């Protein structure tokens, strides 16, 4: 089945997410749709799968124009989508998730789960997916959850399969398995759209590439005709450098010493299991690992946001295991939290207010019960200028900023004072290449100034580029340690998947 988008335009209020987009994908090929976050890739695909309706333009299936009133109709027409954020119901079993919406039923609307399980097993066998139909989705690792999404699409006998940023949550090994599945689907005659902002992946899996920037198609072609640098330039709109410049590694005294640290999750499961860890001055320690292996609880424990269940944390020789977040802040901790909109910022507050969330009580910003707003605004304007936050005014709410600028507000707040130790969790998640470059340079700058830096990221490339020392976290433990300069990506990737343990 061939699908063609012709002249698609989609607006949200005054914002145009897609402008006059033409796109075509044919049976038996993988179309790579490349673009930065916010370029309009997901919007475009949501139009194709019936979730949004286009303001202009038309969709053609095998040359015939179609209109979808809702996702149900797109599914019926054979278009299936695997969303970036999985559309799975965590408390349902695999079989229930797969059949939801097209359930086999008996008398009295009775749900025939036995038949559902058999159908899931049949798809399992056809494509070698190996998923237990009775497992609860919330207990499955993300790699398997993604297979459940694929089974869902196949169960609805889709001929066109859209993958929206499918590899963001996978380990390198899972990515390899996933690519094999995609190739299997392609060879089976499916038309596949693969959306990503990762150049190396698209060069590996796609047959043809289209690049989307600011809602418009800006170029593309067969995969052999294009190289990574050209694609990056098309995607960003200017030449891009991939390297991070660093001075030679010359660590100083030990700043942070973690011994035997144990941290529990909210449900009392073990999250961090007796971790030992040191960070020295002038050193960037990167913690690699697939999300959900205890990195977030570790960061929360180190920043004083989560109770420590056992072990000690020392900072410059002082025991801070149970120190409050504010005490740590006063000692020179800076923290870039992993979820900027949930824990990093208050989206409905202005930029200026967000800039002083950590220091509003200091004498320079407040006098008794009163805020010194003029001082706050002046300091915020200065910090915004210093840290390249692109906004017309610091009185705008943070919610109006792009992700990159939001992240810069956090970096500005955390680093525009004397710091000694920086903890950055997923510092560039979901950002455009320009912002990533900028934030990386700031992190390296903190190191050059003699701060200790601890970075947690699920992007292995980021860890490899920045770290002087790489630790790999797996199931709450540090399972491997590598020298930043000499580590090999493949080896670290294997350790992330638990091979070293």
């Amino acid at each position, binding site marked *: 089945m061939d699908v063609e988008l012709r002249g698609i335009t989609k607006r949200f209020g005054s914002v145009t997410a897609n402008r006059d987009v033409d796109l075509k994908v044919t049976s038996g090929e993988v179309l790579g749709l490349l673009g930065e976050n916010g370029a309009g890739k997901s919007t475009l695909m949501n139009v194709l*799968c019936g*979730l*949004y309706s286009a303001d202009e333009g038309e969709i053609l299936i095998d040359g015939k124009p179609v209109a979808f009133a*809702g*996702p*149900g*109709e797109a*599914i*019926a027409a054979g278009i299936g*989508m695997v*969303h970036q954020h999985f*559309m*799975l*119901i*965590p*408390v*349902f079993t695999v079989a*229930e998730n797969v059949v*939801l*919406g*097209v*359930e086999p*039923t008996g008398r*009295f*609307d*009775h*749900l025939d789960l036995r038949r559902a399980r058999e159908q899931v097993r049949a798809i399992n066998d056809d494509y070698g997916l190996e998923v237990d139909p009775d497992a609860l989705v919330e207990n499955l690792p993300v790699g398997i959850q993604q297979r459940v999404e694929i089974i*869902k699409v196949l169960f609805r006998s889709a001929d066109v399969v859209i993958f929206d940023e499918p590899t963001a949550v996978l380990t390198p090994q899972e990515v390899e398995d996933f690519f094999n599945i995609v190739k299997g689907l392609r060879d089976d005659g499916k038309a596949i759209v693969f959306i990503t902002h990762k150049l190396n992946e698209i060069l590996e899996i796609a047959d043809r590439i289209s690049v989307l920037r600011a809602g418009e198609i800006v170029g593309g072609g067969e995969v052999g005709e294009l190289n990574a640098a050209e694609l990056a330039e098309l995607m960003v709109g200017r030449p891009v450098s991939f390297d991070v410049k660093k001075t030679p590694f010359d660590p100083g005294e030990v700043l942070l010493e973690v011994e035997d640290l*144990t941290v*529990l999750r909210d*449900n*009392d499961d*073990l999250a961090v*299991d*007796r971790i030992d860890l040191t960070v020295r001055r002038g050193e960037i320690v990167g913690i690699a690992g697939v999300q959900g292996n205890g990195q977030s609880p570790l960061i929360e424990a180190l920043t004083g946001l989560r109770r420590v*269940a*056992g072990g000690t944390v020392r900072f410059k020789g002082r025991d801070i295991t149970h120190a409050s977040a504010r005490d740590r802040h006063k000692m020179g901790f800076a923290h870039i939290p992993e979820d900027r909109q949930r824990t990093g910022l208050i989206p409905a507050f202005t930029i200026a207010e967000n800039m002083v969330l950590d220091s509003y009580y200091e004498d320079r910003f407040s006098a008794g019960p009163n805020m010194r707003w003029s001082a706050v605004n002046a300091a915020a304007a200065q910090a915004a200028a210093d840290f390249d936050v692109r906004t017309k005014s610091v009185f705008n709410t943070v919610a109006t900023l792009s992700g990159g600028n939001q992240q810069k507000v956090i970096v500005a707040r955390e680093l525009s004072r004397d710091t000694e130790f920086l903890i950055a969790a997923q510092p560039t998640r979901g950002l455009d290449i320009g912002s990533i470059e900028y934030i990386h340079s700031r992190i390296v700058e903190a190191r050059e100034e003699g701060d200790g830096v601890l970075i947690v990221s699920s992007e292995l490339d980021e860890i490899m580029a920045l770290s002087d020392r790489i630790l790999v976290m797996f199931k709450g*433990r*540090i*399972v*491997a*340690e*590598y*020298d930043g300069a000499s580590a090999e990506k493949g*080896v670290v990737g294997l*350790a992330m998947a638990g091979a*070293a*343990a």
Partner: protein
Amino acid sequence: MTQIADPVQLQARKLDTGKVRQARISGWALLGLAALVAFVFGQDVVGDATFRLSRPNDPLALPNLVIPALPFTYIVAAILAFLGVRLFLQGGVRWTSLALGFGLFLAVAAFLVWATAGKSFSLTGMLQATVVRAVPIALGGLAGVLSERVAVVNIAIEGMLLAGAFTGALIGSLLGGLGGLFAAVAVGGLFGFILAALVVTYRVDQIIAGVVINLFVLGVTSYVSSQVYQEHRFLNNAPVFAPVKIPVLGDLPVIGPVLFYQNIFVYGAVIMVAVATYYLFHTRMGLRARAVGEHPRAADTLGINVYRTRYVNVTVAGMVAGFGGAWFTLGSVGRFDENMTGGRGYIGLAAMIFGRWHPVGALMAALVFGFADSLQQKLALLNTPIPSEFLAMSPYIATIVLVAGLIGRARPPAADGKAYVKE
């Protein structure tokens, strides 16, 4: 330079987990109960407590249950103390809730024995009242389950119960009991539909929409009952459904009168709970409804109409609540009094939470609340030294104790309370 961690057993280490904390708190609670039983109930108890199980003219009569009060009190105190100490000694990660539940049951038994010492008390009568009084709470809880499973928080159950009670009395007076019952169900459904329109289509905050409905119903019904009913008393004089005895089963001792000699509201509640359980967990529509409550966007991407599902479920929930409301008038006293539901809708919500958003759980929880309710009513007859005002608090105290202390980590539907915006 790779260093590899060695796998070590986890059990050996002491972790300061929430479970241990919970066990410790439960241990203190049990010891406190033991002290209460021993020193308060054990102080001035004389004679035997006599519990009547059958009426003299029942076909299968059971002898009275006679319990010597003082020894029973001390045995209960000893068991409670043992359970409490055991939680401390073992760090009691297992069976904590069970021990606490059993301890509470024993404490209530000791309380009953203490209150009855030297007198006699109809146990069967109290259990029968328990079931009857659990009905509106169970139906309120079931209405809550049906709407919260599609992620609509239904504070308006109180108002729907009150509307059902009012309509049942009014239409029941004019057209007879069955007419009143149907009208009550219809009006409950109407308010369910209004709630759905407010929160689904107009995305009013769900709590506020519910409170608005409650205040509206309270205002209208209070006005009519104080102004109109005073003059036209025939409008507030509805027939009451008589108990229906189920053949054979109704003659069994104790469980006969408790379970099989009740009016249609009791049978109706049990049937509705069974049907709702089947609907939610064994049908296609139920699967879709739960999907809408857990992850509406996922349901939407699969072509399930989120808005329609919510409308239907919340409207049906309103009909269930309307049926439960009719119990207050058509199933009980036959006339409407101002604010006669007295917060049973809110207790129904507590029953829903305590029952973990499951129809059967809500029914069981409602029985606990019904027990507290009937206990206060029957104890008033026994002349205990406790003032009747305090006894009247017992259903509400039970609510607080159960919701705050016992339920642990109940998990509501993930999207509960959130409006779904399609685009």
